[in-house]
């Protein structure tokens, strides 16, 4: 089973859900409200970690049986926090965030993107960090100087050129080989197997790196190619699991 964890108004993720269901995929769409409203039993011990989640409708989610999780978790829902005293809300938010970061790591298959302890939805790279590693990965980065007194971006507003998704080893839609290779390397360096990369046009119309994020817009990628790229990630993980010695 595959799953998508996303907000109810996350149109991009819901478009992916429609695409996957049309392709015949066994899919569950989970909202953060479902998760924090559920009953959780998360264990860690001599045998490793396990997680069982019983939703309010009685459905039990077996995370170990999930062969792929598209993780779009952004925040603990305010509707849940409203049940708590105002002075307790920040603490309750921290506790749920910490639980979900650990829980999502118990999925049997790959989690796109993998949770971090302090960011259950996956690592959010900073803008300077993105520029730095993009340059080191061979992507064209416009030189700039940033100080505490200057605006972050160059004075000239970048003209958006194109947006692409890195999905495992696939870059969708296609990019010239050098840019595609740089995009794949950047995604690996940042630990984002699912990453959007944006390019802007310089004065000569050439592509310049303009940013990247794990919070992708799925509609940038052609549907069939996106489904196939996700299938490959799940299959590669499954094959790797099978090859592990018992």
């Amino acid at each position: 089973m595959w799953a998508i964890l996303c907000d109810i108004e996350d149109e991009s993720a819901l478009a992916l859900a429609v695409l996957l269901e049309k392709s015949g995929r066994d899919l569950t769409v989970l909202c953060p409200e479902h998760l924090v409203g559920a009953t959780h039993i998360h264990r860690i011990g001599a045998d490793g970690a396990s997680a069982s989640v019983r939703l309010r409708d009685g459905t039990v989610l077996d995370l170990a049986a999930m062969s792929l999780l598209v993780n779009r978790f952004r925040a603990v829902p305010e509707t849940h926090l409203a049940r708590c005293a105002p002075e307790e809300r920040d603490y309750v938010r921290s506790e749920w965030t910490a639980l979900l970061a650990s829980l999502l790591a118990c999925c049997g298959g790959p989690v796109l993107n993998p949770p971090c302890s302090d960011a259950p939805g996956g690592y959010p790279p900073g803008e300077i960090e993105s520029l730095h590693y993009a340059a080191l990965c061979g992507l064209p980065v416009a030189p700039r100087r940033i100080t505490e007194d200057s605006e972050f971006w160059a004075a000239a507003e970048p003209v958006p050129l194109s947006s692409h998704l890195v999905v495992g080893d696939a870059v969708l839609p296609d990019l010239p080989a050098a840019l595609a290779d740089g995009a794949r390397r950047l995604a690996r360096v940042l630990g984002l197997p699912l990453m959007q990369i944006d390019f802007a046009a310089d004065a000569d119309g050439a592509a310049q790196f303009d940013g990247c994020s794990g919070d992708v817009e799925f509609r940038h990628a052609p549907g069939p190619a996106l489904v196939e790229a996700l299938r490959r990630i799940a299959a590669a993980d499954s094959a790797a699991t099978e090859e592990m010695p018992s």
Partner: protein
Amino acid sequence: MILLIGIPSEPPLAMVADALRRLRLPFQLVNQREAARHSIALDIGPAGVDGVLTLDDREVVLADVTGVYDRATDPSVVPEMTGLEDDDPGALRALRFHSLLSAWLQLSPTTVVNRLRPMGTNASKPAQAQAIHDFFRVPDTLVTDDPDAARRFVEEECAGAGAIYKSVSGERSIVMAVEDDDAERLGDLGPCPVQFQRRIAGTDCRVHVVGDAVHACLIETDALDYRYARMKGRADPKLNAVELPPAWAEACRRMTRALGLEFSGIDLLIDSDGTPWCLEVNTCPAFSYFDVGPGNPIATAVARHLAGAGRVIQTTGPML
């Protein structure tokens, strides 16, 4: 050049500064209380990020920095910032200075003790326990919002040993024993999950790993959480430096590296069979409380690590 970042009077930072002076290693202090007099310029180009830090009238080329000890506190709580409006130009500039310096620290190829990303690994105790599990035993743990599951764990699975509870995140992180009269309170679970653990009887052992150097001490206390012994009306803990068995020391080093840290504070508990259990890894250890040996060996190890010392095996006391 070595940089120390934070409030100069903060004990860990002050102790590392003293150690650097003793070792005659030059360093530059980035005093957060003087952020208004500091500036930073980051240049982004084909080779990545480089730049210049200006402290009063002294320029530090960032590429020349060989080691950084980052004890920066939240810049908004620095005394000079309190009482300022959110949109105060000076406050905004100081925040931005700190933000850019912090961004550079995450990218710099130099030794940074410690970077923010790995420091975040103890924001979720169960997530960190999953990583610890590759190196040490971890106590049986249940994180739940289900009163019945919690009750079964406490009353059945932890029968005889007892159970403790603590926060799941790094907030309000005080260890408490589950007492008989807590049974009714288990019914209050629901809006907020709680972490329960089987209680392990034994001796606390705090280990600090700095690069390859390992410093350990046993903690003699009758308090459940020795950090809060005095608050709970117990006697102050007694610390005794020890040398860990080589296999344990190596596991501590490997675990520290696996978490992406240069410096860690590892809470071990040694049970009556002599088996070590790992309770937690502190990713920004305030080590001053534990650095009681002659010559402050932990601060000295941090100073040497910042200076690029190679593999150093420290002997700090009797073999366990």
